[in-house]
Structures are given as structure tokens and as C-alpha cells.
């Protein structure tokens, strides 16, 4: 019950945050010297009527504060306007957001499944060859520019023909069986996941290593040793639980970093995600689409942090007592 109350409080706290985010984004975009309807005007398939409706919806003839008010009102109603191709922004987003979430959640899952054990292993072998080799490898992983790595992998894909070049599905996707479809998507995901995984593994592994080293140095671990507990019990029962907790806070940050990293990776791999959508929108100065995807990015980020906080409460009883 108390946990629910805390969650509710956190959700309410993120509302003013979202309002400020929308204000910032709105003013940045409107301050640009671009005519928001320029593309629509040039598009012959968009009727005069639609144009009129958009002008009115955006309140372009009114001062900027009124424009913001109008935008906010229709945003809450779920009306995000139309893209410069005349499609609905909301349909476009519904198409792209799941793809980005799929990509990032696979990456987060993989980094956690490998990064945490590798961090523990490095801490237990502190300053030994295993630890040193891992440090060198993670340094290399952190230094490769994501887009450059993506290009190298694409070249690899072209040369070997082992992986499809870009996209998320093959052209005959709809004719495949369900199993074949899953296999097809997995096949397409391998390269982008590799890029983002390399990008985020290093940070996670290093953080876990540091936490574990801190915890292994603490008094209660020394006490457990003195008590004569087995090394296995000390590490997996006492040390690990405390070392993992700070990592959960990192989950939110990791998600933020991934959203940003994913933009370039999606672009190189022609992956139909939110990052590439916003890039395309920016290049065409498609204002409605840019604004909506910025907001979606921010909402996803805030939700990611929220989930991390909730997880932390569940795993760490100390915070439960002090915060709720």
C-alpha cells in the first residue's frame, strides 16, 4: 500500500517535469526561422482545407504563448497533428516506438546478464590479469564511435552475406510462419544490438566492479569472514545484494544513453525506430513530428527512471523505510 502511495507520488512529480520539457522543446522549435507548414504547402496531395485546419490547430497567426496553449491542449487530447507527408503523427509514432523499445530492452537485458557477472568476476580478481584484460577491453568498447562501429559491421555484413543489411524485416516477412518471422527479426537485430551492447556494457561492468570492490571492503563482509562463512555465501548472500542496488539507479541513466546511442545506430542500419524518425523529421523540418518524438523520447526517459526507482524500493528495504 505504501509502495503504491510512493509510486503515485513519483508519477505526480513527473508531470511538472513533462510540462517544462514541453515548454523547452516548443520554444526551441518555434524559435527556428523555419515555416512549420512549408513542406505541407509544397505537397500537392495536401488539400487547402487540411492546411487551414493545421494553421488553426497550431494557432500560427497568434502569439507564441497561445500557440503553446493550443499545442498542449491537443497533445493531451492525443491529437499530434500530421506529418509533412500528410500522415498522422500518432500512427507514425505507434509504428516506431515499439521497435526502439524492442532494441533497447534487448540490449539492457543482455548487458545486465553479462555485465553484472563480469563486474563481479573482475572485482574478485582485482588487479589480476583477468581484471586487467577486461579493463582494456571495456576501454576499447567505450572508445569506438557507435556510428563508425555500425558502418564497420555493415561492411562485414555485405562482405560475408551472413546478415541482412539494415531494416527490421525481410521483404517476404508477411509470408513467413510465426516462427520464421521471429527468426527473421532476430536476424535483423543482431548487428544493431551488437553495436549498442558494446557501447553500454563497458559502463555497467565498471560500475559493478567498483560497487563490488567497495562492498567487499566493508565491515559487514569482514565480519562475515571472521564468522567463518564460506566465500560463496559471503559473496552471493551478503556482498552481491548490496552491490547491485546502486546499479538499479543506473538503469534509468543507461536507458537515456541508449536512446541517444540508438539514434545514430538506427540511422546507419536503416532501422525503423524513434531515433531515425526524429532524424528524418529534423532533416525535413517536419515540426509536428519533431515535437511529438521529442516528447515521446522524454516520456520514455522519465518512465525509465520511474521504473528504476520502483525497482530500487522493492529491492532495498532501507529506502522503503526512509522514503515512504
Amino acid at each position, binding site marked *: 500500500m505504501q509502495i503504491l502511495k510512493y509510486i503515485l507520488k513519483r508519477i505526480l512529480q513527473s508531470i511538472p517535469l513533462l510540462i517544462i*520539457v514541453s515548454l523547452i522543446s516548443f520554444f526551441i522549435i518555434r524559435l527556428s526561422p523555419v515555416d512549420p507548414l512549408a513542406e505541407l504547402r509544397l505537397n500537392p496531395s495536401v488539400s487547402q482545407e487540411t492546411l487551414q485546419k493545421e494553421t488553426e490547430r497550431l494557432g500560427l497567426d497568434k502569439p507564441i504563448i497561445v500557440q503553446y496553449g493550443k499545442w498542449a491542449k491537443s497533445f493531451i487530447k492525443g491529437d499530434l497533428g500530421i506529418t509533412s507527408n500528410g500522415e498522422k503523427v500518432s500512427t507514425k509514432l505507434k509504428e516506431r516506438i515499439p521497435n526502439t523499445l524492442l532494441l533497447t530492452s534487448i540490449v539492457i537485458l543482455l548487458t545486465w546478464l553479462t555485465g553484472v557477472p563480469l563486474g563481479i568476476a573482475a572485482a574478485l580478481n582485482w588487479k589480476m590479469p583477468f581484471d586487467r584484460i577486461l579493463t582494456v577491453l571495456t576501454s576499447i568498447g567505450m572508445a569506438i564511435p557507435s556510428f563508425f562501429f555500425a558502418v564497420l559491421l555493415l561492411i562485414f555484413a555485405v562482405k560475408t552475406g551472413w546478415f541482412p543489411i539494415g531494416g527490421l524485416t525481410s521483404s517476404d516477412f508477411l509470408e513467413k510462419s510465426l516462427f520464421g518471422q521471429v527468426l527473421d527479426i532476430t536476424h535483423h537485430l543482431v548487428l544493431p544490438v551488437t553495436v549498442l551492447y558494446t557501447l553500454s556494457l563497458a559502463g555497467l561492468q565498471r560500475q559493478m566492479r567498483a560497487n563490488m570492490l567497495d562492498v567487499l571492503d566493508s565491515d559487514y563482509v569482514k565480519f562475515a569472514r571472521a564468522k567463518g562463512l564460506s566465500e560463496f555465501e559471503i559473496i552471493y548472500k551478503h556482498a552481491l545484494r548490496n552491490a547491485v542496488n546502486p546499479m538499479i539507479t543506473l538503469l534509468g541513466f543507461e536507458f537515456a544513453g541508449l536512446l541517444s546511442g540508438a539514434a545514430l545506430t538506427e540511422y546507419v542500419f536503416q532501422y525503423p525506430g524513434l531515433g531515425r524518425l526524429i532524424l528524418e523529421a*529534423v*532533416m525535413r523540418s517536419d515540426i509536428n513530428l519533431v515535437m511529438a518524438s521529442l516528447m515521446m523520447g522524454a516520456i520514455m526517459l522519465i518512465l525509465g527512471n520511474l521504473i528504476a526507482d520502483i525497482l530500487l524500493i522493492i529491492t532495498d528495504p532501507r529506502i522503503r523505510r526512509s522514503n515512504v
Partner: protein
Amino acid sequence: MFREVMRKLWQDKFARISLIVLGVIYFALFFADFLAPYTKDFSDRTMAYVPPSKIFIIDENYHLSRPYTYNYVRDFDSENLKIIYNLDRSQKHYIKLFGKGLPYKFLGIIPMKRHLITTDEDGRLFLLGADINGRDVFSRILFGGRISMTIGFLALFVLFPIGLLYGGISGYFGGVVDVVMMRFAEAVMSIPSFYLLIILASILPSGMTSAQRFMLIVIILALIGWAGFARVVRGMVLSVKNQEFVQAARSIGASRLRIIVKHILPQTTSFVIVAMTLSVPSYILSESGLSFLGLGIQQPDASWGNMLKEAQEYTNIIYRPWLLTPGFLIFIAVLAFNVIGDTIRDVLDPKSRGV
């Protein structure tokens, strides 16, 4: 403190190698005009996409010779339907040290014509091949590096004062000021940074001079990172603001701004140094990403990121792998900065344990 840091850097094997690598890179960039065989904008359209020049030291009679090179001629292979480059073996072009080449201003002041290595006027010495416009990739890497390797530092020098002051004021004043300022910073942090970066870059008006564009990119890069930094500074300010030396300053009537700038912020020095060295690489990466997308530094100016723009077409790059060189340089520079940053952090903040 500075000497201690330098000593530790020199003792660590990896850090020493990194220092030397960065030293060589910055030295080469500083003397780029002299070291590069061509100027930044020199282009020979007949030489589009030629491979790196082959340098021979043994001539056709198997005698040792002064180093020379042949020009490439473009040919069309009608059987395989592709363009091939053959060596034009009729004319040898000897390689000259300190020979006369295109005029430039050494260090921007002294007019000079001598380059470290050149060949004769009709010869083309493209050590790393040429790009689509027949420009020398090697020379452009040197000139582009000047932008790529300084932009991160400049952004930091804009960002850190802002972040320090913002965090300092927010933490010291507390109350409503603190709440409002921190909510704003959190909101900026809630926008995925790369999204914000491309949007800010895309609203830059076209038709700016390259110097203006460079400055604006620096400012945009700075606008991305200040919020997270300010938050950490605020936390540190909160922890020292009630200590005795602050109370002492307050009791002798120092102004609030003076207390923040002169007494509280100096407490954060080692954190600032560590944070700065660790964030240089991320700004180098941001700039290159932005330029890679065509939103950063624009042609005809070179930066390592925009030189990689051609790599977007992977069918193109497979036959012309030398166009990828700037990517490896970014990697090496970032790696070196990371190693140095890690070492400095270990010295100044021994409790951090490598994060």
C-alpha cells in the same frame, strides 16, 4: 597537485603511451599546413576516389632508386562494369623533402611554400587516397583534426563555468530557488541528449561562415552537458555550505556571490578536473556524430566526422576503405583521452575505483 598528477601519468604504462599518442596527434595538427602535402581545399577532379599512392624505392630495373610514385589514371572495365585505377607508368614523380608546393601561411602568419613531403607539380601524392572531389584524404585529416580535437575542449570551457555557477547558486541559496533551478535542470536532462543535439543543430540558419558555425556548434555541445554537471556541483555545495569556513566568510560580511565563487566552488576543484578530462572524449564523439549526419561542420570544411559521411554508403566504402581512416583516428584519440582521464581520476579520487 599538478606535478603529482603528471608524475603518476608518466609512471603508468598505458597513460604514458596515451600521452605520447595525443602529443604526436596535436603536434601534427598544429603544424598541419607544413606536414600536409596539399591544402585543405586543393582538389583535382580527375583524381576522384583514387587509391593511396604507391611509393616505390626499387625501379623497373631492380635498382635502388630515390622514392618515386606514379599517378593513377581512371579506366572503365567494360567486362565487370566498374571503374578501375591503373598506374600511369610512363611518368615517374620523385618524392621531395621540403619541396615547394601550394602556398600557405605557416601558423597563420608566415607565408610559405615548402611542405614536408611533396612531389613534382604534375604528380599527385595522395598518401591516403582521395575523396569524391579528388581531395587528398591525408591532408584533410590533418586539417579536420584541428576542428575535431579542439571542439570538445572549447565546449567544456563554455559548459563548466555555467554548470559551476548554476549548481553553486542552486545549492547555496536553497529553498524555492533551488527547487525551481533543479526542476529546470532535470527537465533538460529528461530530453534524450542526442535528440536535443540534432534539433539544436538543425535550427542553425544556413549561410553562416564556417567560423560562426564552429562557434555555434561549440555552444550547442555545451548546452547538452551542463545540467548533469550542475546537479553534481549542487550536491557538493550542499555538503560544504554549512562548514565553518563558510560561516566565517559570512560573518565577516562577504557577499553571497563571493562566498559561492571564492569559498565554496574551489572545494570542487578535483571533481571538476576529473569530470572535465572524462568528458572530453564524449564531446569529440558528439561532434563527430553530428557532423557524420551532416548537421555539424559543413563542407568544404573538414572534420573527422564529416569526412566519414561518405562511409554512409557502404557499397561505396567497400571499394574505398581508405575513406574510413578518420574513424580509426577518432577511436585512437578517444581511447587515449579515456585512459588519461581514468588515471587522473585514480590519482585525485582514489576512492572511485575505476568508474
